[in-house]
């Protein structure tokens, strides 16, 4: 399972970089979306894909019952990262919309007036 996920993560990263290197700012945002999803999936994969019991300790015991239990921390990390990524992406979408309105182009090559 881990190796399949690794390939998926790699494909997502490759797709996102490809999209970000396009000239259209809409594709740029799609690239950003893919990028944050790739990163989340990577955290999920790299911290070990275990199918196990929830790590809840019943009263009177010191460890959770059962042999294998899932690590809750990566899920907490990903949840936080999803929320942050969502907020930032919302901003990015509004930004490119405004940029499109102001510049009148969705071509990154036309957005060079501040470069030189």
């Amino acid at each position, binding site marked *: 399972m881990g190796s399949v996920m690794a390939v998926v993560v790699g494909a997502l990263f490759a797709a996102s970089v490809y999209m*970000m290197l396009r000239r259209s*700012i809409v594709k*740029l945002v799609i690239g*950003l979306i893919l*990028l*944050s999803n*790739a*990163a989340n999936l*990577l*955290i999920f994969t*790299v*911290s*070990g894909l275990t199918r196990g019991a929830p790590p809840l300790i019943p009263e009177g015991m010191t460890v959770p019952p059962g042999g294998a239990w899932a690590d809750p*921390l*990566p899920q907490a*990390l990903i949840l*936080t*990262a999803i929320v*942050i990524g969502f*907020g*930032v992406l919302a*901003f*990015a979408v509004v*930004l*490119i919309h*405004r*940029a499109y309105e*102001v*510049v009148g182009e969705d071509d*990154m090559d036309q*957005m*060079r*007036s*501040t*470069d030189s």
Partner: protein
Amino acid sequence: MSTAVALPVLIPLIAGSLSLVFYKSHAVQRWVGVIGTGALFLATVALLAKTWTDGIQVMEFGSWPAPFGIVLVADLLSATMTLMAGMMGFALAVYSLPSMSRDHEAFGYYPLMHLLLAGVCGAFLTGDIFNLYVWIEVLLVASFALLILGGERGQMEGAVKYVTLNLFSSMMLLVGVGLTYGLTGTLNMADLAVKLPQVEEQGLVTVVGMLFLVSFAIKAAAFPLFFWLPASYHTPPIAVTALFAALLTKVGVYALFRFFSLMFDNDVGYTHELLLWIGGFTMVTGVLGAAAYYEIRRILAFHIISQIGYMIVGLALFTPLALAGGIIYIVHNIIAKTNLFLIGGVIYMLRGSYDLKQIGGLWKTRPMLGVLFLLSALALAGIPPLSGFLGKYVIIRAGIEVESWGIVAAALAVGLMTLYSMVKIWAEAFWKAQPEEHAERAAAFERAIDKKNLTLMMLPVIVLALLPAAIGIGAQPVIEIARVAADQLLDSTAYVEAVLGVTP
């Protein structure tokens, strides 16, 4: 357990919420801005004093013991950095009163400023790498919104690049955090300092370290990843640019210092050699870029990059003296560079342009501004007895001690080139006569000046112009603090003991 550590994060968050409550009343927001950042400044002074006398301060969120809970840790480097954040926040809040236009205030400048300060202080103080990512996102979102304050075309174009590259670097950081957790099963910096050397595959540790290096190098605007900075920094209102120049890139530099002294020092021969090259090229490309421009804000933006190089070189040489030099340089640079931007704003108010070809004759009408500009500009170039000389002297001496002649030569040459850029601004804006074809606009701006506003703008400028001189002349305490901070960075025992409560 020490609540003093949490105050630099809490105060701006509270002040920011208050500003949101009084969103309609700009007068209240202005007062909250000055009082809130003033309180932040005092809290950071108290934190540095406490860290100096009582050692490393730790606070556990929700009393969950480290390494399971998130901790805020203030060692001397963190405390010094938050002090700079507090000082710059206060200076800029005062400066914003007369310089920020009513429109920009209506867009929510003050709540965003507080949010940015909270993110910066949180990033400086946190002892957990995922929490660092969260704070960096907080400050990034605030900076995104500040960057497009006003919504002009240039700002939008700059923001698209700024947002994309910074989000990319944040994702690299997140990937690095995930991989670190996969390798070691912990996210606590002190715990990582113990566990990373125990990882069997040390090559993997270096690879993850490289991810962090690229991520923070983008944020610090280091060579060859700095292109977002000159494309965007000159577009927002000048107080915002000054705030960015003071604090944002320094978060990247601080994170590099923290990661590559506390945690990823397993393969110094590779990582720090790479940092040395990055630092050297950053210095040189930044200063060469500045030479090409005749717009005050762009010249100064390129100098941010070039100065970042010195700090990275201080880290890369990795001797106690070099690290101390790097820390002194950060402190000096934040003060001098911010003040140059503030003076740029005053020049704009007097002449109506940032373009050096359209302005002139300021020495005749405003000699005091000229003196203040020279104090900051010469400090930046490293002329004794100002603070820049102190920072450069310590770093170059450290370079000579390890016989790294190439970097010593580059540092000296870049100092000379910095002087050239500063003299260019001086000669064009202050010394030459006002160009005839733009005299009308200059006169109109001169007439429109409100004396009271100008005095208020000059207040922080005067204080920040005198500070480098004070640091340069009374250097002993600064060097002392920087030396102890560098020792804390190189020997992580005290840090680990303070956070985990056990001797490694």
